[in-house]
């Protein structure tokens, strides 16, 4: 369980897919998009955050059951 700055009111469990690693994981997380990227060692310059199918900025907060995708900005040309 990762808990950032502010405490969450209830437990947040979400699914996170990292495109570049082509891997999904289910994780408990409490924090912003920027904190999520930091925790997963993803540079915000190299990725786009998608929450439940919509692109969101890095200050986005999450709720229980969210489906998060971290798309890679880099492509091979």
């Amino acid at each position: 369980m990762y808990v950032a700055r502010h405490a969450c009111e209830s437990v947040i469990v979400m699914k996170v897919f990292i495109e570049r690693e082509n891997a999904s994981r289910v994780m408990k997380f409490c924090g912003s998009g920027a904190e999520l990227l930091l925790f997963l060692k993803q540079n915000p310059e190299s990725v786009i955050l998608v929450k439940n199918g919509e692109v969101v900025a890095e200050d986005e907060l999450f709720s229980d059951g969210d489906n998060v995708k971290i798309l890679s900005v880099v492509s091979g040309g």
Partner: protein
Amino acid sequence: MRCGACTNNAVLLNPAYCKSHFVKYFEDKVFDTIKRFRMITPSDRVCVAVSGGKDSLSVLYLVKKFLDAKKGGGSVVALAINEGIEGYRQKTLDDLKLFCSQQKIELRLLSYKEEFGTTLDYLVQQKKIAGKPCGACGTFRRSLLNRGSKGFDKLVTGHNMDDEVQAIMMNIFRHHLELALRSGPKTPQNPAGLFVQRVKPLYFCSEKEVRLYAHLQGFLTTFTECPNAAVSFRASVRDFINEYEAKCPGTKSMIVQWFLDTIGKDSSKKRSVISSVCLACGEPAVGTRCGSCTIVEQLRA
């Protein structure tokens, strides 16, 4: 965060825009770049180099949109290069064919195999070429873009601001002043007519912005990374610049601006010096052999 122009949620923090305002901001930036550097005139016959990735699909779409709006008789053809990298290029070529048919754009295809009798995979296996395959691949690619763009007024590439920043830094690290002089948003005109002028409408768009634009426009781009890319010098430069940009936002655009104010100043008014041709294939060359023919000869040796 809210969009800086309306009450919708922002999809990007810097600049803070919602979906629709971001799309407008991005398109305006590209059209302004085209006009500011006189990259394309309304009557131009334009060849767009495409790979099927986010950069080339976005630039292809926007060049067509620009010319359609101008109604000056200009036209667009897409030119794709197949390097012959198993499992890497085929999917993007399929995406590209679909995209071009949807957008009603003619697609032309040139391959290393047909033009040089070799594939990038073979080149990597043979290990006859010193250093990383990316150098030889780039030489082949430039030759084919040159062949494929003959007879057009402009050759458009999808190079974005990150590509340019990486090139500037690589040229500094390796003290390649000659190469640095050749970059910039618009290449010099070749008085001998050996090259079509190359222009980069995405010059001021970061890679993240381009990916976001392509995503929001629904351009189908599968994530692919060249299997050789991870070993390249460019990849390490890219990673360190991105780390730095995350700490100090705005660094990339400062580097590009510094370049434009100094060595890149008036680069499009300078004249390209290459005036001789390769004795083997007739393409532009420094000396008697072009880069591509030199590599092909090394492979045969």
